[in-house]
């Protein structure tokens, strides 16, 4: 019996030991670098940061939706079913099934996931330059979340972690105010570390972070904080408006004194319509191009995002920004030496006679090899004029009209317009109007109208209490477990 006892004990021990021995099962794939064993040397962080920047290139969608949803432009295109989602947004008939809105949702979360992946591993090792990388990653996360909160309001806030499928079904939408709080936190952290300049074109700077922070405050009507923050940018004297408004949107004129935050694109890599987020080029200019155009200056395109008569009429004829913002195609053709030889087609998706002259395919800026998709033109997300106008608006709302006038007039002076001298509400409204004139075609208008409460009056069929936010794509509600409430009235 003693032997038996011994063996029984031995086998019980073996039983317990082996079943409890989790270590035996903790193996990594051999000689393989994957997401679970990454971030072991500084280069890993640098490369992951590049990956985190990548999703910003999806922001060309802003130039579309920010304009098309507003009174500035119509969807255009080949037909009303060509990019149907944009046409629905144009007509304010958009619902929860909308491919473009789903792209916005998915791409920005992909960007957030890439930054979170980096930030979740931020303490793995220490090295010189890590703070800079972390700061840029935080900026990017703030940018992606700001996009989401701007479009959809409450969105799940995920910080420094990647989620599994099962975790998503337990996730609620985070109140927009909490999301904003995280955005502010990230941008403050970033602005404390980043320098005003970065020798490598394309990296964000202290100015980018503060300008975005000022904008984020403005979107929350935190005018005092916004004014203070934007003043830092202005008073740093690192920025100045460039003289020639017409030269603002050319490839040859990037990274100048007015550049606060650009998203970089390249025309050197091809791509396909099947995966717009895979592009390294800016899809907007090609799509904005003139359909089957055969003539000088411009290239042919898909006639998207066509400015309205309403926008054209908003400019005074003496405002040079009208021609810089809007291409009046027939007028342009008749000005040419050979108008009869210039041909183009009108798309079935709508025609106004006007084209977005800021982001449009121009000869000399044509990417390779599919130039409809690969424009090298950067997206000027925040330029110094915008900083001045935001600061002016914040000051005006704060009642510091003098500064407000100073800033808005600096913008007007550049295009040869006289200064504003109004004050109070009139000044605020004049600044709003100035924003439209200065920034049209750049994807700000719809969000500005919503933010300032003008949308109901300015956008046909805009329903207050509904259209301030876009609907969360229904499929995303379903895939996240179906527990989220849709935005009001959708």
């Amino acid at each position: 019996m003693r032997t038996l006892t011994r063996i029984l004990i031995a086998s019980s021990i073996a039983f317990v030991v082996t079943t409890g021995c989790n270590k035996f099962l903790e193996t990594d794939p051999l000689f393989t670098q994957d997401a679970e064993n990454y971030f072991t040397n500084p280069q890993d962080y640098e490369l992951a940061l590049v990956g985190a920047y990548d999703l910003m290139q999806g922001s060309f969608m802003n130039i579309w939706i920010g304009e098309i949803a507003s009174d500035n432009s119509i969807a255009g295109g080949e037909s009303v079913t060509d990019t149907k989602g944009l046409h629905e947004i144009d007509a304010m008939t958009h619902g929860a099934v909308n491919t473009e809105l789903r792209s916005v949702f998915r791409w920005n979360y992909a960007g957030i996931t890439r930054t979170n992946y980096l930030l979740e591993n931020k303490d793995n090792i220490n090295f010189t330059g890590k703070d800079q990388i972390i700061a840029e990653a935080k900026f990017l996360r703030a940018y992606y979340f700001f996009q989401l909160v701007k479009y959809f309001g409450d969105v799940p806030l995920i910080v420094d972690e990647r989620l599994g499928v099962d975790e998503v079904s337990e996730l609620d939408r985070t109140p927009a105010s909490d999301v904003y709080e995280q955005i502010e936190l990230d941008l403050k952290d970033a602005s404390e570390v980043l320098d005003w300049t970065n020798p490598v074109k394309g990296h964000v700077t202290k100015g980018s972070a503060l300008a975005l922070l000022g904008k984020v405050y403005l979107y929350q009507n935190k005018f005092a904080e916004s004014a203070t923050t934007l003043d830092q940018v202005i008073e740093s004297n690192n920025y100045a408006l460039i003289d020639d408004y017409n030269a603002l949107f050319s490839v040859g004129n990037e990274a100048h004194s007015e550049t606060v935050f650009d998203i970089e694109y390249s025309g050197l890599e091809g791509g396909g319509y099947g995966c717009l987020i895979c592009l390294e080029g800016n899809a907007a200019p090609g799509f904005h191009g003139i359909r089957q155009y055969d003539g000088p200056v411009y290239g042919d395109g898909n006639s998207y995002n066509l400015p309205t008569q309403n926008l054209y009429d908003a400019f005074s004829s003496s405002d040079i920004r009208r021609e810089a913002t809007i291409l009046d195609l027939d007028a342009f053709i008749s000005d040419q030496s050979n108008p009869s030889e210039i041909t183009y087609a009108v798309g079935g998706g709508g025609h106004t006679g006007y084209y977005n002259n800021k982001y449009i395919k121009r000869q000399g800026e044509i990417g390779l090899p599919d130039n409809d998709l690969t424009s090298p033109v950067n997206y000027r997300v925040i330029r110094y004029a915008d900083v001045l106008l935001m600061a002016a608006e914040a000051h005006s709302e704060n009642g510091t009209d003098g500064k407000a006038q100073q800033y808005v007039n600096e913008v007007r002076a550049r295009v040869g317009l006289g200064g504003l001298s109004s004050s109070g509400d009139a000044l605020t409204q004049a600044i709003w109007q100035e924003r439209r004139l200065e920034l049209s075609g750049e994807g700000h208008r719809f969000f500005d109208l919503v933010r300032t409460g003008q949308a109901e009056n300015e956008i046909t069929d805009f329903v207050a209490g509904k259209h301030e936010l876009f609907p969360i794509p229904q499929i995303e509600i379903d895939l996240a477990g179906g527990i989220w409430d849709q935005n009001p009235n959708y």
Partner: protein
Amino acid sequence: MKQNLFLLFVISAFAISVQAQKTTVKGQIKDDTEFTVPGVTIVEKGTSNGTITDMDGNYSLEVEDANEAVLVFSFMGFETQEMAVAGRSSLDIELAPSISALDEVVVVGYGTSTKKEVTGATAKVTGENIQKLNIPRMDQALQGQVSGVAINTNSGSPGGSSSIRIRGLSTFGDNDPLILVDGVVYDSEGLNALNPSDIESINVLKDATAGIYGVRAANGVIIIETKKGSANSKPRVEVSGYYGIQQPAKKLSLLNAQEYATLKNEAFGTSGDDVPFANTDLGEGTNWQDSVFQNAAIQNYNVSISGGSKSTTYSVGGSYFSQDGIVGGDKSNFTRFNGRLNLTTDITERVKLTSILLYTHEDRKTLPENGIGSVLYNTINAFPTDPIRSTNGNYTYLEEVSDIINPIAQMENTHNNAWVDKIVGKEELAIKINDDFTFTNRAAYNYALVDSKTFSPLVWYGPGKAQNSAINEDLDPSLVEIGDSVFIERGASVYESRATYLDLNFESYLNYAHTFNTHHSVKATLGTSVFQRKGSGLNGTAFNIPNNSIEYADISANLAPGGYLNNVGSFQYEERLLSSFLRAEYGYRYKYLISAILRRDGSTKFGPNSKWGMFPTVSSAWVFSEEDFFNVEAISFAKLRASYGISGNDQIQNFAYRAQLNGEGVYVFDDVIQTGVALGRASNPDLRWESTRQFNVGLDIGIGDGFSFTTNYFIKNTVDLLFQPDVSGVIGSYGPGGQPPIINAGDVSNKGLEIELGYATDPIKAYGFGANFNMTYLRNEVLRTPDGVDFLPGANFGVGGNVATRFEEGYDIGYFHGFETNGVYQSQAEIDASDVIQEGAKPGDLRYVDQNGDGMINFSDDTDKKELGSPIPDFTFGLNLNAKLMRFDISANIFSAIGQEIIRNYERQQPYANQLDYVINRWVGPNTSEYDPRLTTEANRNTEFSDYYVEKGDFMRIKNIQIGYTIPKSSLEKLRMESIRVYVSANNILTLTNYQGYDPEIGSNGGPLSAGVDYGFYPQARSVMGGFNFKF
């Protein structure tokens, strides 16, 4: 010998007639291990006078006439004995354990049971039956032998594999059962290494009681035992072998040259093109099949020695097997050498060592097969109007179809070789602690070294052929630009690879068995298992082999300048499994039996949140023939069984739970595109096994002495299949290059009924007959795919054609999906009058059915497609017959499968490709054909995947017939031999089917979703063999 003495004794007892007188006979009854046996029934023969033994095995019975009386001693589990009293008053008897079918040992995993006791659905094939089939590969032995097990031959080429499916397909992933050879894990690919003659038995665990193997048991478990020696026996030498000739069982009915030329002229003519043949009187032309197929040898020789002393048993053997292919002869050869040693020795009275070692060397040569571009595909489609060689002696080019090459040239230019060396074995120590406890510890290993070499000479099959590696007829190599205007030649190449695989498995388990108070039997098994599998490999390709010659076909011989073109690759992986298991069994009077199994498995394959799984099973049986109320004379044994349990399938990709860095992370800095790193496939820390829940209810009935009947009904639901469906964008999978995580979603159900009927006469008699019939009904259905996944696409039809098979909710796995036809348009008037617009239809075209009723046939989407069939048979039948007539024995095996369909996908739908001769019945004008469309080379929709290309796959096949003769022992004495048996055997001698292809018994050349798609499968050969079996 014992028995003979006993007979003598009985006869002499009768001879001595003594006068009758009333006597009380007493005695004690023991079993062969000297234990007394209580409860034995003793009856005076021919009377109702009887008694039973008491607790100590004693009895006492008064008989009328002690000289005449004969007593019959019977007890379950023992041979019934008759003994004449012969005047004695004391008669002690030793009962021999019965060798009835009910006491047949069933191996159930970490222990054994008997057919009588077992509570699960199991099946067994004995080595004797396997040997008689003369098959190259062990798994073919299971086909038609047991119900619920389907064997599909994936290729009939020598060394080709089969797929083993126990109770249907439960996943679109890996459906292979767990295979254990003497307790060592074997993968089904590796089964070629086993010599069928070395097998003692194959046991199949079909239901949830396989759950003792937990996460690996979901697809069933096959337990193979190799031959062992027996104790206290003289060395027994066995030499056996067979030699046979194989030939194709069938050739396709293709068009001959004259038919071909006539029909091609018609096809081109109807399109308004110039006809290709000015003269169609071309006779038979080239029969490519006759040139490609050949008779081929198959041979097998075995020698084995087995025996044992009091404490040691041994079985040692060696074998040689070689099979040439009916396509390609020795270019498609499989040769195998086996050596094995099976040794048991009692180290002490209580400790037994079992040592098993199996060594195999395999050598296999292969030709391109089972797909587009295979030798048979080229053979079927080659033009009968072209000779094999043109007048200049070169092989013809078959120029008119760019992807059909001369199959004879192709065989000549193919040099594929693979070698496998495999060492499998275990060392096992079984410690008998006392009568109740046995403690077993074993270390098992499975090592394989797999080498391959492929030589690709410079070849020229004709202008524009994709398989060309030279640039012209003179075999000039192509030039490759390796730098700016720097070119080098790319000559003949050789690819070599070497991979090693090693499994190590340590297992310890404690078996307990005890019977309390006579009637309460308790058995238990408690154990742990640690399993590790490693694989690694290295491969390389080198170019510019000298002289374009196989003679120098080695990487070392390459003359590639600077090695620019040469390339190398490698892989390695490691997986581990950690398990513990418990089985408890209780039986009351062998009447009520209940068993419970619990296994816990942890595996490196699963995500950190799901590393461990728990797999429970319960099963029970009720032997109601033992009940007092049961008094059906004819039924000797009746048992009702039920089982339910959960098991898993861990055969999923390694590390699929981990996130990958294969995304695209590219951004522009300083106007330069800079490549970073980004998440690709997202992680799923919850990823786990596919889980199978199986319920089984079964009935075993024995009728009289010879009949047996077994039936099982099962419901097997597999859940948590692995998918990669759309997931919430919040997970962040939708950036460039991103992929959603692999998740567990999707369910499959298999339901079925199995019936086995057996009959056998007493094997000892000189004349005997045995029959075994089995039937399986199976219904497979996909129950669920995750949201966002409507279906998974499977195999393609034609070249770059439509997806023809699918994994979709509500259908069989891999069901066929395409257009339904309802005849042929007879006239333009009919087309014009039709309610349905079929774009481009002309008279003579197939008429498709408008499934969605929108008034038109939609060729651009799937809305007018429907289910056209399934590769899974509804019923399979097996019939095995054997008879013994004095010294002659005869056996036959018949297998049949009914209810499955096959896609005819070996026809290259090109203007010049040859065709099966059914096209002679084509439509040529109104009312000439309601079934076969017109022949034309103009654009048409007749080659869309439709039911026109789906055929019934029903078949019945005589797999094997064997007639043997055993030479009388008397004539062997001079030769000092124990027995000689010689036989002739024929495999695959007859197949009844309407299927037009080579062989209706086709497996899959790429997983469950490619099943039933015939690309010109390498068919199984018909063979006739002669063999011998000598025992010394």
